[in-house]
């Protein structure tokens, strides 16, 4: 509570600094060469930032350091020396009791320490708050003394703005780095227990709790490719391509104007909804169909159900990529073909599609990368059995399904089972990255060809 109060006080000081500095700068007069360098606003911001930044920085550091100091102070009291308990457990329990996270103590003899803890905590909070206030005041006062007509407040403030801009854009780099490092770090620990050869080329997948279990990921890779790159694409490529062709070449502009957003809605439906639909409606229908036709090994968690629904989800993606690349084919090529007497469909099939093919292929690669990274549809509709089969009616499992499976439920973070999820994640990350790079290169090269 008191930390919020101090934060408000610091903010209040900064505001006062802003107002007074602005008012002071507003009274600067002078024309021509003696004109003040910066507008009053910038002087205000300069002072406010000097009041805010050091104090907030200190409070952040203090928030990180003070729990350790409090713990040390509590364990140093004579009351705690009498309790036979590990100091770390002791302070943790007292902290939990004091904050109300724990209502009944495990050790009744720590209860007298709670008021001691609260007192020490209050003491340190006060120290931190007062120092922050002093820092805010000192910073503000220092900046206020610099408010003069020829002081370049604007330049200083703008330099900070630029630093903030650069910092914001570095977050993307940090995130990428974080992904790569966390995946690599955990994967290295995994590969210390399971050989990479066994992982990448083994055909038996049966993770067990603890360190036993076999981690041959080939059935997972096959399942992912089967569902995401084969079945889903068999649905998405013809439907997406034909939709794009119809909407760009045949449909009236008015039809196109409202048909295109409807197709886009398909991409906006959350994947968990598709997953539910696949599991509840599509999968039973496919199983009944397979049983009716007499196909052996039909499962209610068939690869076909997950793949079909995933294909539908990908349609707008393929369609909009195809749309873009067909639109990029020069009009002269189309006109030339039509002038030779070819019908519209002949022009499309013999001229437009071949010319747009690289773009379409790039789009399909992007769609594949999207499909193999898709999680919820396969978690809900595909199975868990790691089968190496080409029968679309039987159950296969995918990389993403297994990641979810391995990381939910009880977690002991050091077992090969949980670490395997990170190794799978690393493979998924690398494959999608490569697909994206290749796809973007294909699209880019093709665009250059017509420019």
């Amino acid at each position: 509570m008191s930390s919020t109060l101090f934060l408000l006080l610091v903010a209040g000081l900064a505001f006062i600094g802003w107002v007074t500095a602005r008012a002071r700068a507003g009274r600067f007069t002078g024309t021509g060469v003696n004109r003040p360098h910066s507008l009053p606003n910038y002087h205000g911001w300069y002072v406010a930032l000097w009041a805010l930044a050091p104090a907030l920085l200190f409070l952040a550091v203090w928030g990180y350091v003070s729990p350790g100091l409090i713990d040390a102070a509590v364990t140093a009291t004579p009351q705690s020396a009498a309790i036979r308990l590990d100091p770390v457990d002791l302070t943790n329990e007292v902290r939990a009791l004091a904050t109300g996270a724990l209502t009944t103590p495990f050790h009744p003899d720590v209860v007298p320490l709670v008021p001691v803890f609260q007192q020490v905590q209050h003491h340190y909070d006060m120290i931190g708050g007062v120092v922050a206030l002093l820092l805010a005041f000192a910073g503000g006062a220092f900046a206020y003394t610099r408010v003069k007509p020829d002081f370049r407040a604007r330049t200083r403030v703008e330099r900070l703005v630029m630093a903030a801009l650069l910092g914001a854009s570095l977050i993307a780099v940090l995130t990428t780095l974080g992904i790569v490092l966390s995946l690599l770090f955990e994967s290295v620990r995994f590969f210390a227990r399971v050989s990479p050869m066994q992982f990448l080329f083994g055909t038996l997948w049966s993770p067990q709790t603890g360190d036993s279990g076999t981690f041959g990921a080939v059935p997972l890779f096959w399942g992912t490719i089967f569902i995401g790159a084969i079945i889903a694409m068999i649905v998405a490529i013809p439907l997406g391509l034909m939709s794009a062709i119809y909407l760009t070449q045949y449909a009236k502009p008015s039809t196109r104007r409202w048909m295109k957003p409807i197709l886009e809605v398909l991409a906006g439906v959350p994947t968990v909804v598709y997953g539910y639909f696949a599991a509840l409606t599509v999968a039973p229908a496919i199983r009944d169909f397979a049983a009716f036709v007499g196909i052996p090994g039909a499962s209610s968690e068939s690869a076909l159900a997950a793949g079909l629904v995933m294909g539908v989800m990908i349609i707008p993606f393929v369609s909009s990529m195809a749309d873009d690349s067909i639109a990029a084919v020069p009009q002269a090529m189309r006109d030339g073909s039509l002038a030779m007497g070819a019908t519209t469909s002949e022009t499309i099939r013999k001229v437009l599609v071949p010319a747009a093919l690289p773009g379409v292929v790039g789009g399909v690669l992007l769609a594949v990368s999207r499909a193999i990274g898709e999680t919820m549809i396969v978690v809900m509709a595909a199975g868990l059995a790691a089968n190496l089969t080409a029968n679309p009616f039987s159950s296969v499992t995918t990389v993403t399904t297994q990641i979810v499976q391995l990381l939910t439920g009880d977690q002991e973070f050091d077992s090969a089972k949980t670490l395997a999820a990170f190794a799978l994640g690393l493979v998924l990350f690398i494959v999608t990255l490569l697909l994206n790079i290749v796809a973007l290169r294909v699209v880019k090269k093709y665009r250059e060809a017509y420019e």
Partner: protein
Amino acid sequence: MSTLAPVMQPAPKHAQARVPTDWTTASMQGRIRRRYRAERNFRMLGAGAVLLSTAFLVFLLVSMLSQGLRGFTQTELKLPMDFPAARLGIDPVALRGPDARAILAAADLENATAQAANRAYGPAGYKLLSDGAWLSIRSAIQEDPTILTRRADIWVPTSTAIDLAAKTDGDADAEAGFRMLDARQAVRTGFSMAFLTGADSTDPTIVGIWGALKGSLLTMFVTLILAFPVGVLSALYLEEYAPRNRWTDLIEVSINNLAAVPSIIFGLLGLAVFLNFLDFPRSAPIVGGLTLALMTMPVIVIAGRNAIKSVPPSIRDAALGIGASKVQVVFHHVLPLALPGILTGTIIGMARALGETAPLLMIGMRAFIASPPGGLADPATVLPVQIFLWSDEVSRGYVEKTSAAIIVLLVFLLAMNGIAIYLRNRFERRW
């Protein structure tokens, strides 16, 4: 042309023998017919593809609606409670006091409710009730403690079987039970506020989505306040200030790659960094929000860059020309003009984050949470994860509740996309 052609380009020998194509012959007519038929077929194929895709969407929405609308309703039965006879041992006056909660917890309301049902509807009467029926009795007592001194008819939720029998078709026992209740006019099916205000439960008849919805709202709040400023500032930097060098390329490549990384990878990042390394609380909206912010930020950056790019350079030149600094040009002129476009992109990115499930499963937001979260660090679940959890339940009663939750989620997404489209049409300027 005809006179010049032989001079410029001697015609090949066989051309001498060529006769003009006779379009009226049967074979030529047949050929044209075939080509026109191919044209028509191709066109039908295209229209078929569009229609098939649309039909799938319609089928999806209709099947969700037809199941889900029932999920908003709940069957209730009239339970005559004779409180004095039940001997609950609660003093109505004490309920006005501060210990009301403890007193109610001590009383065996569950048993009293079951007994009342048995008295009213035969020895198996308690089976007609939902497991959570006593909660309705409890809230009735809380509302009006004087009820304890008299008899009262209280509407309580029925069991899943009766609920299904009332709405569609249940098994034979439930149908018989429902007919019995119906004959006594002791049953009604109506819109259930409890579904919109409650939280998760182990009994489908008393579940609600407010807990998950509140978790979603808290998570989205964290995502928005983190991803929006960072995304906008990065977009401004990359589009307006960044020098062309290797570092800028690195930033651009990272952002473009992040936009294409599968969402589950962000979940792994959140698990490894926020939970295991930084030791943040599991299942908390703040961790979910952080993870989704990392995922949404590249979307906002890309949309923001496009919006900023579309502001014509003449605006910048004019501002620079009258003496504005580079920061002033961007923050006073470019940003306000690009803001509608940035907001549109942000809303679309947020809509995607709202429907995202996989990364949140990774950071433990799939726990059973029976009460709405009170703050950013409380255990919570979100709407899509709640849908996933309910879809896994065995009890048939969850089917319609899952679809109802999906309807709520889709309504939110539709509203967000609607706002985005409105913003685009209303404010976006084309130069």
